[in-house]
């Protein structure tokens, strides 16, 4: 049976009525011990006696055509084959649901996967890949970066409301500043990997993927097979951050080679592959304009951005996503320009849009507060719009002011001084603040929930856990609804044979998949209520005992066989009629060395409001992750491209610095109490990407407060600060 809900109406807050106490509580993830003891098997680790090993061959030129000469390596030890068939140019974009670009013998960027070399062992395959003779027909007309691009795609119909130029001219205070950000790599700990096994027409692929429902269609389409014949397995994923949203070259290559060879083939990306071929976050240039009247009210906002991508690649970094709704102001204008370049594909990297767009917006707000002589928090609070400033829609729960106020109190914002005022030896100390906002999205999702007479339960869905805590929260939701201790609930994920869920991405996984589990369990509650002889509203379930209508019975007496229900959530009118977003406030205290320009983040605090917090511990971990990405974005991370070829030169973790323990101080997170009734039946909103949105801007605003240097070019490496000191 199926419990179905289309989210058209506000739903009762059932999770505030249940009494098991499984939800919200800071429960450690149940699969954690498996992961830290090496017992959680990741895609590349599956043992299969007759598996062959493939290594991706990368293009050594940025543009042109190629032909591989397999005869040049046939005699090498362990040689099994070299395949170019169906090789994609890059991974599919998130939720694409069809094949990524497959461009045959054409090369459009240096590092593009062009073949897979397969041998008995990994080492042999690597050697064959290195020795393979490739004939290149090189095209020297290369656009290595946005500055040399001949084609720039303009956004068809950029939003333009009122008269921004006029608002700027009439403003009492204004900011017109340009910010730049370098590209980013997701740099997930687990490199992309796939193990493909054919059995007749049936293909099974173990891979590291975020969205199995979409990925199944993408891989089937790439191979020209029926999706019904394809099973994907991704029970454990060592981080995704957007890089595993779409099917990517190693899975397609492994499938093609396995078919040709009639034996399983494993393809694992190297770290260099990950940097060179996995989607990057585009570099951006952003022009921000803010106009403020004499009363401290915004009258105009403008955000225009320049970025880059490969030809025909259906993705643009939604840089201005939060700018549309975060602050009031009648006159608003946006623009987007995408240079077509010979660089790897740009796509979703954690919090696409806000991660870089809010750096510029929140820096500009800080500059405006300075210009107007208003406290940055007061300026933000005074300009929170009543309704959506561009379409007039009402907002769902929105605790931005509470986050700013409560965060300021907890952080000790009142101790903030003027730039340069607080000195400790060589170091100047400063504080910064930034708003956080991330659009909340709900996606269709299904899950099967089964309650057994022995008081255990099973949750099954093809949802993924990319290190976010899905195993924990789905078990907690089922436990809360069914009145069981969480350890009695088993959660099975990451298998396309199971009911199709939303997948992990866009911070929608917990609320979407969680709502499906909620609905499945709700269906079981309805059936238990019937058996107990009470209404579902009167039913109370706790510790394996059902109470209702003057009856009190252990579950075992109510059922002689397992009860199973599929929960099916669909998005409804609420997604369209009400503007939904998570909100928060980031605070940072930094020390800037006046002699070297080094920046040390001393402490950070995030005050977050994201509806119901399902698990305080995994939610906090998500926010920590966002704060740490904020440090990287502000201070250390940035892809550098060879100006001649567009090639990513810092293509490993020794050159691209992701923050490590020494870079990360004590991180504080507080959750502002909230329920979002418009969002979904569990009143929760996404939190993963919210934790990153604005985080880096709080750091660079703190740098200004410390030493009076405005960082407008990211990352703020010491040489960039030193030159202004």
């Amino acid at each position, binding site marked *: 049976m199926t419990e179905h809900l289309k989210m058209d109406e506000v739903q009762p807050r059932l999770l505030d009525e249940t009494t098991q106490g499984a939800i919200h509580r800071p429960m450690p993830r149940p699969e954690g011990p498996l992961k830290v003891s090496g017992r959680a098997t990741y895609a590349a680790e599956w043992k299969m006696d007759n598996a062959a090993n493939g290594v991706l061959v990368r293009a050594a030129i940025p543009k042109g055509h190629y032909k591989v000469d397999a005869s040049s390596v046939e005699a090498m030890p362990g040689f099994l084959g070299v395949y170019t068939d169906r090789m994609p140019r890059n991974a599919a974009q998130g939720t694409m649901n069809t094949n990524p670009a497959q461009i045959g013998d054409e090369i459009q960027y240096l590092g593009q996967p062009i073949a897979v070399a397969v041998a008995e062992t990994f*080492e042999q395959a690597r*050697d064959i890949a*290195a020795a393979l003779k490739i004939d290149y027909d090189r095209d020297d007309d290369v656009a290595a970066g946005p500055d040399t691009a001949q084609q720039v795609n303009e956004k068809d119909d950029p939003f333009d409301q009122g008269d921004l130029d006029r608002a700027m001219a009439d403003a009492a205070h204004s900011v017109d500043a340009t910010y730049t950000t370098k590209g980013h790599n997701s740099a997930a700990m687990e490199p992309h990997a796939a193990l493909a096994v054919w059995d007749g027409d049936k293909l099974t692929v173990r891979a590291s993927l975020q969205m199995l429902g979409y990925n199944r269609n993408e891989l089937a389409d790439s191979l020209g097979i029926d999706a019904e014949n394809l099973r994907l397995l991704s029970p454990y994923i060592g981080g995704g951050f957007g890089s595993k949203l779409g099917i990517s070259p190693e899975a397609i290559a492994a499938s093609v080679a396995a078919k040709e060879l009639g034996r399983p083939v494993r393809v694992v990306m190297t770290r260099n592959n990950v940097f060179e071929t996995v989607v990057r976050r585009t570099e951006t240039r952003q022009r921000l304009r803010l106009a403020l009247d004499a009363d401290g009210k915004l009258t105009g906002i403008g955000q225009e951005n320049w970025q880059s991508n490969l030809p025909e690649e259906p993705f643009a970094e939604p840089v201005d996503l939060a700018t549309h709704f975060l602050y009031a102001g009648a006159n608003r204008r946006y623009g987007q320009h995408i240079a077509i370049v010979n660089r790897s594909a740009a796509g979703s990297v954690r919090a696409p849009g806000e991660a870089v767009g809010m750096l510029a917006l929140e820096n500009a707000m800080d500059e405006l507060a300075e210009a107007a002589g208003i406290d940055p928090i007061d300026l933000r609070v005074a300009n929170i719009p009543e309704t959506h400033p561009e379409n007039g829609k009402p907002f769902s729960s929105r605790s931005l002011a509470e986050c700013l106020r409560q965060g300021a109190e907890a952080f000790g914002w009142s101790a903030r001084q003027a730039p340069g005022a607080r000195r400790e030896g060589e170091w100047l100390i400063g504080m910064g603040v930034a708003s956080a906002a991330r659009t909340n999205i709900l996606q269709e999702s299904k899950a099967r929930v089964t309650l057994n007479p022995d008081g255990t339960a099973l949750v099954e869905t093809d949802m993924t856990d990319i290190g976010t805590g899905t195993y924990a929260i789905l078990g907690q939701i089922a436990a809360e609804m069914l009145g069981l201790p969480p350890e009695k609930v088993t959660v099975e994920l990451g298998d396309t044979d199971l009911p199709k869920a939303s997948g992990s991405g866009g911070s929608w996984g917990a609320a979407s998949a969680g709502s499906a589990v909620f609905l499945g369990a709700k269906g079981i509650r309805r059936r238990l209520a019937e058996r107990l002889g009470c209404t579902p509203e009167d039913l109370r379930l706790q510790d394996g005992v059902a109470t209702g209508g003057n009856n009190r019975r252990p579950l075992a007496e109510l059922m002689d066989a397992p009860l199973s229900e599929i929960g099916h959530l669909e998005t409804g009118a609420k997604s369209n009629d009400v503007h939904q977003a998570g909100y928060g406030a980031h605070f940072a205290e930094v020390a800037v060395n006046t*002699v*070297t*320009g080094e920046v040390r983040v001393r402490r950070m605090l995030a005050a977050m409001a994201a509806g119901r917090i399902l698990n305080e511990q995994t939610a906090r971990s998500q926010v920590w992750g966002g704060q740490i990405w904020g440090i990287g974005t502000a201070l*250390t991370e*940035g892809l*550098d491209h060879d100006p001649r070829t567009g090639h990513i*030169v*810092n293509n490993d*973790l*020794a*050159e*691209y*610095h992701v923050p*490590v323990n*020494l*870079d990360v101080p004590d991180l504080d997170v507080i959750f502002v109490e909230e329920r979002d009734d418009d969002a979904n039946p569990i009143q929760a909103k996404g939190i993963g990407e919210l934790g990153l949105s604005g985080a880096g801007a709080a750091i660079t605003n703190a740098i200004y407060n410390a030493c009076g240097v405005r960082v407008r070019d990211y990352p703020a*490496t*010491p*040489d960039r600060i*030193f*030159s202004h000191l």
Partner: protein
Amino acid sequence: MYDFEFERPRSIADAVKALKTEEAIAFSGGQTLMPTMKQRLAMPSKVVSLTAIEEMRGVRQDGSGIWIGGATTHATVARETKDSYPALSSLAARIGDPAVRARGTIGGSVANNDPSACYPAGVLASRGVIVTDRREIPADDFFEGMFMTALEEGEIVTAVKVEVPETAHYAKFIQPASRFPLTAVFVAKYGDGVRVAVTGASESGVFRWTEAEDALSGDWSADAVDGLSAPDGSDMISDLHGTGDYRAHLVKVMTKRAVAAC
């Protein structure tokens, strides 16, 4: 890996003989050579390991100085010079990470003369002498430029000798991802003068900042550095980790810090 011959001689004489083969290369800790070979930037037909040569290992007093065998690892130098030459010990203890320090050797480091390596600064500032299978070369003549040394074809660094100064300090500004110095300065004060050696900064590799040496020899104080202008940034490495001007600035900053820490 591709096929190559591998020899592990037990004496310097045997190693020298083995290296007479065309395209043979000496292999000490392999911390540079192995990745270089993996990337096919070097494809020697024969690799001659120096790690089994007992006479090239260890640390011992040598008159008023210290003798360090060429095949001695960074970890061993860090441990064995802790009392006799704390500044050198500290330099060795901060190279790379524990895995690098367990394999990498002083001989390999000076023979490679990476412009961002730590040892060349320590050896140059410590009035070092590079001992090879055929001669002794003062450090001043040994380091010729980025990845360039006075070594001849097949010549092996068998030991490094340093003079122990009255006081010394190695001030290192690290590039956080690789932990190579972005710029680092080794300052050593002897009875008859001061040496200041800089690594990580110059396009020409390790160098002595003679203006600072003169100033400090006259007035041994961090303030003495203040009056100097930093070296010219146009001669400095400019890359994604920092501009040449920034490195030039760091030369002065790290020199001052090194003196202050002595």
